[in-house]
Each structure stands twice: as structure tokens, then as C-alpha cells.
């Protein structure tokens, strides 16, 4: 347990030392999405009755920021350590696999949630947003960041170079978040694309999170949370199995 604490503390310090790049920059980027999309589409689109597009957009953007930053934290920490060789500092100690995994995921969650809160604060002067179900919001934010933190650990275990990691990020994580209904309700899609979206775990995180604010969503929040927990369970199981085998970490 003390091993977990030290490793988690190290990981937290690692990103907070460069918070300009790891927290403020993503907040600004997300803010730009809001300004541009809301400006272009505000008068033309309405996804939910009684909810302006600008307001509709914010929860999705907050969740996207949480997810992308949670992923970035664990994955880049592991890959950077592999490349610089200082990964030995965390491979030599007697961490249990669970301890190791949880420390990286925990720090990822903190980074994701910090950016999420940052986006909420930054957007508050631009949109008036009320939270209908705060506990649901918290549940989705926490579980969603945990899923992406775990996916980041998986990517970090697998990737041996930065370009492999950015391939993973650009061809898996970014498309999956963009196509998960951040910018639209999947009810506005053709039936085929609607079904495809339902196979995307990211969709349930966004949709569930949006439900917490508006009390309306494309699918029921209980369905979403079950889907998110299933994703979390699957990814954690795979990551722990790979750590146990020493796959690519202890070749």
C-alpha cells in the first residue's frame, strides 16, 4: 500500500510540475472548440428540446477533455520512462501488479478530472449550466477517467516508441471520442451510424455525463454506467494480465 502511495505521488508530481502543458493547454483547446462550434451551429441546431446547442455542447466537451487527458497521462508517462530507461526505477521495486496499475490509473484520473473542472470553470462565463444529477455526474466522470487511465496503461505497456503511442492516440482514442456524440445526439444519426455508436464505450460516458446535467439522454443512465463499468473491468483485467506476464515491460 505504501508503494502505491509513493508511486501515485510521483505520478501526480510529474504532471503537476508541467501543468501549463498538462492542464492549462487542454483547457484552452477545449474552450476553443466551444467558441467555434457554438458560434457556427448555435442558431441552426438543437439537439434536445429546451437546451441551446452551446449548452448542449459543454458536458460533452468536458467529458472529452477528461477522457483524453486521463489517457495521455498514464500512457505518456510509461512510454517516456521506457524510452529514457528510467522505467527501471518502477520495475525494480516490489509493487504488486494491482498496486502498480492503480497508481498510474489514479494519477490519470486526477489529471483528467482536474482538466474537466478547469473546462467547467473556464466555460462558466459563457454558458449557464445547471447540474440536474450531481452524483451521476461524479460517477461518470470518475468511471470515465478510470477507463481511459486504464487504456493509457495498456497503450503504455504496448508502445515502445512515442510514434507508436501517438498512432494509438490519433487512430483510436481521438476518433472514438469525436465519434461518441460529443458534438451531437446519436438520435440525429442514420440508423446504421446510430448502431455503430452504441458499440463505442465512449458514447456511454458522454451520454451518461450529459444526462447528469440535462436529465435527458439518448440511452438510460443505468445502461450507460453498466457499459462503462464493463469497459473498465475488461481493460483492467487485460492490463493486469499483461503486467503479470511481464509483456513488453520485462522482455
Amino acid at each position: 500500500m505504501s508503494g502505491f502511495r509513493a508511486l501515485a505521488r510521483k505520478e501526480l508530481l510529474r504532471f503537476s510540475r508541467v501543468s501549463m502543458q498538462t492542464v492549462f493547454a487542454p483547457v484552452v483547446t477545449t474552450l476553443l472548440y466551444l467558441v467555434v462550434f457554438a458560434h457556427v451551429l448555435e442558431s441552426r441546431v438543437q439537439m434536445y428540446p429546451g437546451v441551446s446547442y452551446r449548452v448542449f455542447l459543454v458536458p460533452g466537451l468536458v467529458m472529452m477533455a477528461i477522457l483524453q487527458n486521463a489517457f495521455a497521462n498514464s500512457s505518456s508517462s510509461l512510454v517516456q520512462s521506457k524510452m529514457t530507461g528510467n522505467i527501471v526505477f518502477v520495475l525494480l521495486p516490489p509493487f504488486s501488479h494491482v498496486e502498480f496499475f492503480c497508481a498510474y490509473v489514479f494519477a490519470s484520473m486526477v489529471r483528467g478530472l482536474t482538466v474537466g473542472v478547469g473546462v467547467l470553470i473556464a466555460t462558466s462565463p459563457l454558458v449557464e449550466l445547471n447540474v440536474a444529477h450531481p452524483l451521476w455526474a461524479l460517477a461518470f466522470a470518475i468511471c470515465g477517467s478510470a477507463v481511459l487511465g486504464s487504456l493509457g496503461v495498456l497503450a503504455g505497456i504496448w508502445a515502445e516508441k512515442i510514434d507508436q503511442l501517438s498512432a494509438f492516440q490519433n487512430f483510436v482514442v481521438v476518433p472514438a471520442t469525436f465519434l461518441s456524440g460529443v458534438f451531437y445526439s446519436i438520435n440525429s444519426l442514420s440508423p446504421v451510424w446510430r448502431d455503430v455508436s452504441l458499440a463505442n464505450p465512449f458514447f456511454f460516458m458522454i451520454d451518461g455525463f450529459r444526462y447528469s446535467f440535462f436529465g435527458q439522454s439518448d440511452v438510460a443512465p443505468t445502461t450507460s454506467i453498466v457499459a462503462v463499468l464493463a469497459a473498465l473491468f475488461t481493460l483492467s483485467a487485460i492490463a493486469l494480465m499483461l503486467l503479470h506476464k511481464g509483456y513488453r515491460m520485462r522482455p
Partner: protein
Amino acid sequence: MSANSPVGPQSALNASPAIEVRGLAKRFGKLQALDHIDLTIERGEFFGLLGPNGAGKTTLISIIAGLTRADAGVAKVMGHDVIADYRAARRALGVVPQELVFDPFFTVRETLEFQAGYFGAKNSRAWIDEVIESLDLGDKANTNMRALSGGMKRRVLVGQALVHKPPVIVLDEPTAGVDVGLRMTLWKFIRRLNDDGHTIVLTTHYLEEAESLCGRIAMMNRGRIVALDRTDALIKRHHSLNLRVRLIGASLPAALRSRCVASVDDTHTFPLDRFEEVESTLASLRAANCRLLEMELLQPDLEEIFVEIMRTDAMQHAKGAQ
């Protein structure tokens, strides 16, 4: 042994050696980096692992440290299997890696504190202070790792291996790139740890260093152990002495010329098996009217033995390949 001895009261495992390796094999593609190695290092030893570049020393250490998985064989640290019982094995082991690695986000003290935390070391503050002092890093304690010179980074690596006071300490070329002054301080520190009961395993390419420090030495070549003995026995194993003389007067008599292994101008070297042969050799020289201008008795050193063992091994390998 004192109450806080690193070995500790582990009655069931008391008999187990510090490091035990059986049939260890590792292949990288076509290259057999380790070829079924057996090795036992007892508790309290100061052990040297020598060998040319690519011999497999680091690979062996990596397997013992759990950084790499062996293809076959078992490795144990203080009786704990490095795979099945990896947590106990790693707790018992401190490793100074060969590569000069560091985490650029942190200062020297943070680096050491984190490492202590990873091992669950409690109340490590005083010990960390002592490590910093002993490694002469006092004035750099709050400096970022990036801003240290190579030799200083190496010292921090040594410190990181010691923060949890492991009973077994493995140093993979700890003195590469370290200046003479610090080398002495470092060895004094490591010796003290050895006196306190820590087992030390060391690889180095400075053979005089190994000769003066290590009680026992294994020489590796192409993934195998080609010599393993007490350091003094290893040195005595071949011939024991060289007598070097510089002469004036008559030239070397034929009887002596055949025993001479090296003649440069009027300086000649005779290998001797025993010390008593010095007298008889000098007597023969006198009888031949040679006058002695200078005389030197050369003890064989590890370097000579090393070169000889590697040459023999290469010859055997060549024969085997035919």
C-alpha cells in the same frame, strides 16, 4: 550479527544463499546471451562478475532483478524465486543499473525519497541523509537531476539502490565515468556495507578494482562462466611470478634464453613457478658473468589472468566450431 542486520531473522531461509542461479538461459533472436548458467553467491560475499563487452553480465543481472525473463532456469535472491516470489526477491535486492538513467522531473533528494517509498521503507529520512553524505552529494541534494554531471548521476543511481537497505546489492559498472576521488569514497562506503553483512556483487572493467575488492570472481564469456574461484586462487592458478632483470656485461647464456618470455634490449623477463627459483636464476646469471643493473619481481595481476582465460576460451570455442 547485530539486531538490525540486513540479513534478519529468517530462520527458515537462513541456509539459502544470497543469489542462486540454476540453468539460466536467455536468447535474443539468434544470439544465446546466457547459456545455461549455474552460480551461487553466499551471503556476505564481495563477488566480482567480470567479462568482456557482450559477455552476458548485464543480462544475468537483469534476470536476477526481474527486469528480463529467462527462457529457462531459475534465479533466487535470498531464497526467493524472482518470478514466483518476486516481491520478497525484489525487496532483498538493490541494483545499480549500467545505463545512466534518471528522471528529469525531480531533484536528487526527491529521487531518493520516491525510491525509498516504492520499497515501503519507513523512517528513511536519516538513512537518505547518510546516503547523500556518503556519496558526496550534499550540495546537490536539491538540484534537479538534469543539472548533474554524468558522474553525479551515477552516484544518485548508487544511492537509489541503497535506500531500502537491501541485504544484496548488485552494482553494474558503478564506477564507469566516476572520478578517482569519488571511486575511493564509493568503495569505502560499499566496503562498509559489506562489513555490515550486505552481500555485494559487482561488475567492472577496471580489473585492479575487482582484484582489490572481491573475495571471489566469476569470469564470463559468450554467455557462459569460464572461470570461478577465489580471487587469490585465480591469480595463483597460472604461473605465479615474473622476474625482470636488466643486465650489463655478457649476453644471456643459451640455457637462460630459452626460459625467457620477453627480451627488450638488455631487459629480460623470466616466468617463475615458485619464489625459490629467484635465487637459482640469479645464480645462473652470475655464473654466466652477467651483471645485474636492475631487478624487479612482478606479481601476476588479474588483468593478465583475465586475458589468458579469455584467450583459452576463444581457442576452445574455435576448436569446438570446427
